[in-house]
């Protein structure tokens, strides 16, 4: 049973709907067939009602023919009438044979029995009459004719009476039957209406039952269309087309959810990667900075100079002591500040030291002028920037000028940017060299004498990393022997007090 039910519910949609309609039509059809059969049977009964009367009429007519032909023969003695008599009496006998010969409780049967017996006697007498006529026995055939006629009357009356009674009864039956027929008609119509109404109800219910998963599907699909992917998955039990679509829909919803999840995940990964990249970049920057600073390693120098300064002081050589002390200061700056951010003031101090050392070395050939707004002294900048620039100016600008070389240091402000300008009056730079220097591709062949090893490319790179500006430095040279001006641009970023 369960298997059958399952097979039913697994039917295709077409199969289901077709089966419903076939069932409904079959139902109506069957009821109709029953009604028609009923009507047929009733009309058959109605036709049968008067059959007995028709039979009796036939019997009566046949009897009349016998009597008339006998009378004809007695009158005229024609062979035609004799033939007619034999034929009709034969016919009548056959009809009479068909009557029942039972003593029944039913009056019709008894009357038929009596008619049968009387007819037998009648035919006997009639035969005798004909025989007497043939024998020309006038007296005999007259008497017998009278007897026969009397019997004929009786039989006729009997038939008439029976016919009447039957007709009366049949009429009653007919009336009842036709009433029944009318009732049957009414009932039939009522039944058909009831069947149709029931059919409509059942079809509606059944189709509803079939369609309801489709409705649920449509509702879910609508929700999905409106962007709600968190709809409850449909319950799919059937294996019909709706079931297939439902399953496909469920699969689709699940797939969409999975896709969304996957996309979200990949986006998160990407973002993390970006973050990582940024972090790496900053680390790299940091590393680069550290690396570049590490190129200048003056620890040893500082320590030895310090020892030299102490020695000079022990020997009482004050100028030597000062000189070595400045040298030590200069290198200590490198040890101390090499890996940190410093202020413009500290950087300028370093430049001061450097110029002092050079002037000792070159016996005061370098004229150094500085014009610094004190309010910018606390502005932050990377360490070891100004000294290489000044060094560059000394090496390439004014070394060969023998006491005529000059260096100007200016710190000023344009909008939010702090500008540090280092200018010399040396040999100047051609445009090509300026471009190369700014692009970081210019390489000095060897470290110049007295250089601390930090090239312009390093300076520019570190400035770029620090300020995150693209243009951190501009080099201005009017032409040969017209000097060079280096200007570096810094963000107005002042050091916090506690760091000082």
């Amino acid at each position, binding site marked *: 049973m369960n298997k059958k039910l399952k097979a039913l*519910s697994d039917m295709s949609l077409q199969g289901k709907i077709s089966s419903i309609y076939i069932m409904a039509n079959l139902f109506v059809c069957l009821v109709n067939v029953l009604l028609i059969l009923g009507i047929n049977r009733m009309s058959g009964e109605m036709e049968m009602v008067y059959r007995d009367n028709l039979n009796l009429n036939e019997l009566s007519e046949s009897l009349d023919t016998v009597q008339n032909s006998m009378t004809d023969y007695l009158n005229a003695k024609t062979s035609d009438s004799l033939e007619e008599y034999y034929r009709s009496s034969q016919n009548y006998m056959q009809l009479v044979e068909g009557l029942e010969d039972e003593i029944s*409780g039913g009056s019709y049967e008894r009357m038929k029995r009596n008619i049968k*017996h*009387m007819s037998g*006697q009648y035919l006997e007498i009639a035969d005798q009459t004909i025989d007497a006529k043939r024998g020309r026995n006038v007296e005999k055939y007259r008497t017998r004719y009278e007897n026969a006629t009397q019997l004929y009357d009786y039989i006729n*009356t009997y038939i008439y009476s029976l016919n009447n009674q039957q007709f009366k009864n049949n009429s009653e039956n007919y009336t009842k039957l036709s009433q029944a027929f009318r009732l049957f008609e009414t009932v039939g119509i009522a039944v058909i209406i009831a069947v149709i109404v029931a059919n409509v109800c059942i079809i509606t219910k059944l189709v509803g039952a079939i369609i309801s998963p489709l409705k649920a599907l449509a509702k879910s699909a609508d929700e999905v269309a409106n962007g709600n992917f968190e709809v409850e998955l449909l319950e799919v039990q059937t294996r019909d087309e709706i079931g297939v679509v439902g399953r496909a829909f469920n699969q689709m919803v699940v797939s969409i959810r999975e896709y969304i999840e996957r996309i979200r995940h990949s986006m998160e990964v990407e973002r993390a990667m970006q973050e990582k990249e940024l972090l790496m970049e900053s680390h790299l920057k940091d590393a680069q900075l550290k690396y570049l600073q590490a190129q200048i390693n003056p620890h040893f120098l500082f320590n030895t100079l310090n020892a030299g300064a102490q020695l000079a002081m022990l020997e009482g050589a004050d100028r030597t002591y000062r000189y070595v002390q400045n040298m030590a200061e200069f290198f200590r700056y490198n040890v101390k500040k090499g890996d940190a951010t410093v202020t413009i003031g500290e950087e300028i101090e370093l430049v001061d030291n450097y110029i002092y050392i050079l002037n000792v070395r070159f016996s005061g050939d370098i004229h150094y002028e500085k014009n610094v707004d004190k309010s910018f002294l606390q502005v932050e900048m990377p360490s070891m920037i100004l000294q290489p620039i000044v060094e560059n100016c000394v090496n390439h600008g004014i070394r060969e000028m023998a006491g005529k070389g000059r260096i100007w240091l200016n710190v000023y402000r344009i909008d939010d940017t702090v500008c540090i300008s280092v200018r010399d009056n040396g040999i100047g730079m051609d445009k090509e060299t300026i471009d190369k220097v700014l692009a970081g591709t210019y390489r000095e062949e060897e470290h110049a004498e007295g250089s601390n090893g930090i090239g312009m490319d390093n300076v520019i790179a570190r400035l770029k990393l620090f300020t995150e500006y693209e243009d951190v430095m501009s080099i201005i040279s009017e032409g040969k022997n017209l000097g060079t001006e280096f200007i570096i641009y810094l963000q107005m970023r002042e050091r916090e007090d506690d760091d000082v």
Partner: protein
Amino acid sequence: MNKDRRKPKKYTFYLGITILLLVITIIMGVFAFTIYLGRYTQKSNPNRYGRYYIMIAENNSASFWKSVYMGAYEEGLLQDSYVDFLNDTFGGSYSKEDMMRIAIASEVDGIIVAADESDEMTELINEAAEAEIPVVTLYGDNTQSNRCTFVGIGSYDLGREYGRQVLEIMRKKQLPRAQVQVTPLYDEDGVRLMWTEKMIQRPVKVTVLMSAHTQDSGQNILCSGIQETIENEKQENVEIELSLVTIDDTNTFSVEESIRDIFMEEDLPDIIVCLNELNTTCAYQAVVDYNKVGQVNILGYYDSDTILKAIDRNVIYATAKVDAAQMGKYCVEALTEYHSFGNTSQYFMADIELINKDNIAEYLDGGAKSE
């Protein structure tokens, strides 16, 4: 799991209901239709019987004959015989003789006939006997014929009873009544002188309504019974005038006219004795119509409802109740006996009872009757 199963079940549930409805409709429809149609096509009683008797009565369709027939019919059913009442079939269109011929021609197993002493009847009964059909004469006999038995009432006894009733009426109503006879007295010249008054006793007039069939021995015996009783038992000085009036019962409806003729006459009878049910009913109606209640006393015959009511209302003095059903029963018994043994008793007498004002209550309603 339950939840999963619910929807397919819904579908199959409706499908199941459809099929169930279908089957129920078909079964109910066929069943109802068959029963319904069966009511209209029921065949008549299919019982079959071994013998077939025909009963022929007087043509007046009185309830008396119906009762006789019912007695015969019921007894017949017990004896595996069917008794047909031919008067019912032909409804008065044939005479008894015609019906006898029909019965003979129908080759029945026995005929019960209310015979008379006519030659034609004798002939017919003999004819039937020749055709080996036993004939029982009922109520009226045909003594000369070869009938096998006679079932009737004791006519002489009934006559004596009527006679006694006549005398009782005379005693109770103080008949004869004295009558003043006024006669004129004339002188010689024929001139009337005066009126003479004389008290005379008018004789009591008793009229017996007789059937036109004068050969009916039964009523003759009955009449002599009345006559003898009156003669023997009356007071000596009382004069009783017994007249026999023949009622024309040869034609349909003539009985009533004949009885009314009696009332048209000046000298009305004091007592009318009726010897059958129809006469009784007609006489009763005439007495009422002519406003002669109390003046004309009726002695009736049979106990139909009309007659019983009339007794209750003092219109009919008394009636002889013949046990009609018993008569019918005797007829069939006689025929069965004849078929079994080839012979039977010559006479069967039915019981007679007298109903008058004293015992009318016993008969008036069905409840009393059954008690």
